[in-house]
């Protein structure tokens, strides 16, 4: 096996791939990247058995073949090279690879490609087509509402993708707040529900570019793949019953307060500096005395701030009923996004 790369192009492709590889995994090969040169294409592949990334790299194949190289060392070498071309080739000793170019030669331990886990073949119907930009944006704007870590309600650590009537609905909730986004789909799809781990989506969000390139999502049993021209992103799906979110989205919140989004966010951040209990989340309290009678409603400041910094409208609306029922926070021109936040009883 022998492949020629341009440093800059390799580096761009390498970083999302090497992020997935985890050198601390008990299975040593999972710390490696599979480099595959076949049928005129160079692929870089990594997986942690839950997420898999496959990217097509621009490279010139001198000799076909496949080998795995340690992700961390390999990407560090590439990052630190000056702009140049380089050659990745199997050593005479087949358990080593050479990375060499003008004035440098690195020899790395390699593991045979046969030992690398095989990523699933997901065929079947394309269920969603979205632009890379839209998907990236959607992920950013709801991922924070998912429960951190799997805890013991794993399904909440994922994001629901639900398709019904030409609409894709994305929902994330940790049981205290909820983010929901409705995306109209250009053509009709069959009805479907799948929960994708937030961790995987976060990784996907980092990898996707702000482009109009179409992302296809394919679902098969307990696997999902997102496909682009030079990227395939595999992830398992989460088992379990996603809570019935529709029933808790309030329909009769009649009180509304509209706030300047950035000013409100800045205020919250400033107060947080002075909050005494650093280890504790902060509260934000809205105290009304005239319009709604004497009413105080309090929220976890982080929940509100998460919405504020990720929304885009100049103003945001907070719709509520009383100090204990769920409130809706959303951009005031926004129609597709909704955030539900449960108040804090004081």
């Amino acid at each position, binding site marked *: 096996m022998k492949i020629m790369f341009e440093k800059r192009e390799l580096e761009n492709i390498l970083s999302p791939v090497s992020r997935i590889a985890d050198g601390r995994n008990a299975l040593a090969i999972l710390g490696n990247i599979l480099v595959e040169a076949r049928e005129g294409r160079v692929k870089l592949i990594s997986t942690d058995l839950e997420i898999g990334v496959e990217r097509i790299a621009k490279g010139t194949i001198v000799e076909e073949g496949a080998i795995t190289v340690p992700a961390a060392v390999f990407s560090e070498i590439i990052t630190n090279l000056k702009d140049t071309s380089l050659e990745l080739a199997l050593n005479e000793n087949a358990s080593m690879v050479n990375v060499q170019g003008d004035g440098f030669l690195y020899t790395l331990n390699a593991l045979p490609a046969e030992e690398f886990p095989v990523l699933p073949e997901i065929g079947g119907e394309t269920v969603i087509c979205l632009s890379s930009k839209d998907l990236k944006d959607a992920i950013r704007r709801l991922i924070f509402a998912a429960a951190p870590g799997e805890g013991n309600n794993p399904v909440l650590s994922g994001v629901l993708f639900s398709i019904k009537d030409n609409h894709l609905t994305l929902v994330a909730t940790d049981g205290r707040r909820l983010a929901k986004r409705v995306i109209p789909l250009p053509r009709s799809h069959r009805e479907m529900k799948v929960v994708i781990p937030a961790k995987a989506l976060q990784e996907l969000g980092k990898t996707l570019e702000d482009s109009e390139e179409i992302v296809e999502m394919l679902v098969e049993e307990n696997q999902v793949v997102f496909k682009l021209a030079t990227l395939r992103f595999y992830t398992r799906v989460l088992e379990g019953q996603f809570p019935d979110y529709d029933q808790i989205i309030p329909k009769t919140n009649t009180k509304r307060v509209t706030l300047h989004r950035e000013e409100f966010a800045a205020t919250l951040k400033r107060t947080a500096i002075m909050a005494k209990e650093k280890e504790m989340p902060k*509260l934000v309290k809205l105290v009304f005395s005239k319009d709604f009678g004497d009413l105080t409603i309090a929220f976890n400041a982080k929940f509100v701030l998460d919405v504020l910094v990720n929304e885009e409208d100049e103003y945001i609306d907070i719709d509520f009923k009383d100090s204990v029922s769920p409130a809706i926070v959303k951009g005031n021109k926004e129609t597709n996004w909704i955030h539900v936040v449960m108040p804090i009883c004081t």
Partner: protein
Amino acid sequence: MPRIAVLDRSVSERIAAGEVIERPSSVVKELVENSLDAGSDWIRVEIRDGGKQAIIVSDNGCGMSEQDAVLALARHATSKIQTLDDLDTLLSLGFRGEAIPSIASVSRMEIWTKEHGGDGGTRVQIEGGEILDVSPTGCPSGTRIVVEDLFWNLPARRKFLRSPLTEQGHVADLVGKMALSNPAVHWLLVSKDRTLADLPPGTDLSGRVAQVMGKVRPHELIPVSGGGFFALSGVVSIPTKTWPNRRNQVFFVNGRLVHSPILAGAVSEGLARYFPQPSQHPMVVLFVQSPPGEVDVNVHPTKSEVRFSRPGDVYREVATALQESLEAGGLNLVERAYSIPANTAFFSPPPAPPTRGGEETGWSAGRGEEIGEDAGGCRQAGEGARIGEETDRRPWGGTAPQQMVMELPAAYAAAPGGQILGQLGGTYILVREGDTLFFLDQHNIHERIHFEALNRRRESRKSLSQGLLFPLHLDVGPKEAAFLAEKLPLLRDVGFDLESFGLNRVLVRAVPFGFEKLAGPDQIRDLLTEISARDDLRDPTLFLEHATATVACKAALKAGEVLSEDEMLCLWDGAKSLANPSVCPHGRPVMIQLRLEDLHRMFKRK
């Protein structure tokens, strides 16, 4: 012949004696109380064969004239009260006039007594209550009472006396406790020719408690003071010093050693925040001074029980005083508990002080502290922020002032941040601050921080609870469900909004705000189960402390969790704002410190 007959005087006296005089220590108690009432400042108690063979109590009190000495043997003869009204204003320990005749009736007794400035002394010999001889004699001022062959005429009772060592233990315990409440008296306890205790006057309370009770060092005791209607003073051990029973809790009311369920209860409540583990009890020595009219000591012949006319007040005042005293301890508690003691093993022993009767660990440690300080060079006043001056000022043992190291490193004020050095074993956080190295247990410190935060919320009646979008249905079991149903309003104070839901189910609508770890249904179920486990806690305050401690514990980081530097910094900041950074609510230490001088000592530089 009538069946009912008036008992012979000697018989009735012996029966009466049985109420007051149970064992040698009761004799010692009565005699020593008389000595104290006589204004003695030197009391020597000698026992032989655990007091079975002889008990000799000598004092340098006011003594008695011949006439008084004889009269003292008559039942209900007393110098201490004259009318019934005097009982209300009683300040002396004895008053019933029963002690001397009771003892006399069940032993062979000799009284040697001489009034101060009197011409000569008197010797009275009594056997079984009968005066055998009264004669003038030469003797030192004061009184010396010799009680021999206790219960010689009550063989049944004599048979029930325990081994000499057990009886000696009871006597030693009693003398020690009397010594606590009478620090101005020089106490000596002698068994045969061996001095068991020599407690010179002038020792401060912490020092004397350490001498008498053993088990603690003086700096492990925190002074207690306070009260309102009642004047309270005493000491309580630091929260790391606990025992599985209440034997180390001693109460004095108006100088009288008493058993009091009210006081014991008040201690439990006042300290619940610091010693919430109900099976662990601190050492407490507490003096309650009340106007005589507010206490009834005439409940029992041995006067070991008292009744308060205002039980609620005394309960509240005691609980508050203890709580405030511990709170005032602040970071000192850490110093007291966890700085490496200046142990004599680390350097040459100090020169022997002139009077070192009862050698106690407290002595050597205390003096060692002082020597260590000297060797380290006198600290300049500006060198460190000085806290806990109260302790610094207290003289101890009549020698040089006790030099408890109560200084924080100089850098404390300048660089409040401290420098996080890292995490050890995924469990301990190392922080350097100035010349001091702190080791924090991440679970314990986090638990403590949560605990205090929750308590602050509870006290300000602002229990914050995070509503849940999807109420949780939890199967907790029938017993637990019933228990929780009963405690719903109390649990609201901690931040739970629960609803009973069928036989073994609860519906959780809201959970305490701010604890990310308490997110999943399993964690909440575990938490509720653990809270329900203490169904023996009837007292709402104790129950709340328990519930709070449980929430704090469950929400805290666990050992083994790898922390980022920011997280560690957060914990350190939290640790420094703690009111009581000594133990977690379960009694485990939260931090240990190692100062530069500790290291110098360990490396034998000083």
